[in-house]
């Protein structure tokens, strides 16, 4: 996991990179090229009532290149561990992103974490991909998803 960070008094922007080895049951891919990584940008802004959160993500894998055909459909979900609600990252009209050459854009989500006393704010990130051969159907890697907990800056006025 790698982290980059920018912050001022109320806003913090962090970048995360999570990766996992994986096996994709497609000829030419297997264990050597089935692995994948997810890059996340998490922007958090503390307000009196809690915290506004903006999460965007891109995915990356060599699987389609190694297979020589097909496409990768990346997905990512964020779970607010304060209330258990789940958010699916998607692309909204009018939104633009800067992505690298080998990155696959997943999208973004906005959520609000209501302040809870003695409950440090955190989110769970789940992500993975689906390989679409376009002829013989789909395949997902093993493991089918990576799951990570991201701990956030404490709520306003909390140590």
């Amino acid at each position, binding site marked *: 996991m790698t982290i980059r960070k920018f912050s001022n008094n109320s806003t913090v922007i962090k970048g995360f990179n999570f990766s996992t080895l994986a096996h994709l*049951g497609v000829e030419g891919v*297997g264990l050597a*090229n089935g692995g994948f990584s997810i890059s996340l940008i998490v922007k958090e802004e503390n307000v009196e009532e809690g915290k506004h959160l903006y999460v965007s993500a891109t995915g990356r894998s060599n699987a389609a290149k190694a297979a020589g055909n097909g496409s990768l459909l990346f997905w990512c979900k964020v779970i607010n561990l304060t209330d258990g609600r789940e958010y699916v990252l998607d692309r909204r009209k009018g939104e633009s992103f800067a992505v690298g050459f080998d990155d696959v854009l997943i999208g973004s989500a906005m959520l609000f974490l209501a302040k809870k006393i003695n409950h440090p704010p955190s989110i769970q990130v789940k992500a993975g991909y*689906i390989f679409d051969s376009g002829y013989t159907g789909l395949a997902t890697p093993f493991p089918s*998803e990576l799951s990570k907990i991201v701990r956030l800056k404490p709520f306003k006025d909390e140590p």
Partner: protein
Amino acid sequence: MIKPIFLFTVLLIVTLASGLQAAPVYVDKPTAEASDLMKQYVMSSVAERVEVLHRLEVLSTKHPDNVNVRRMYANLLVSDRKYDSAISQYEMLNKKNPRPVLLLPECMLKERVGKKDKGCYQSVIAIAEEKNILDSDYLTALYFADDQRFLAEKEKLINADKMTKAELAVFSLSRDRILYTLYP
């Protein structure tokens, strides 16, 4: 002057062509249905996944000889951590026409559930060598079979620019670490 019938024909062809491009290109209808269920499964909640998996099971029972449908069903059983059921599906898939790409997960799952079968990996190696498919699955089978040719074959793949050292770095991990990461 361009005749209206000519314009109509051109428009019809363009419309049909664009329609064909957007239409699913799966080999048959059951494959398309199973693909749709897989997408649904991935984005479903834990409770909804039970129903989606059941629908895929029904589809594979309805089309017992459709390899694509059964492969996708086995794939989702692994995702759902139903390893014993997944092994049964892979055994069915590999009974008639075993291929390294489907036989290797069967071998690894068996080892994961404590039923290590060295002969299974050796079958993957034999089929791969017979068909001259010397790729990641072949190397993985050599690794898990503790085959003495592993290091030499790994070097061959790197020297032939078929794979990079970075891609093959996974084999520096222990077999348990790999198995438990792939099949938690």
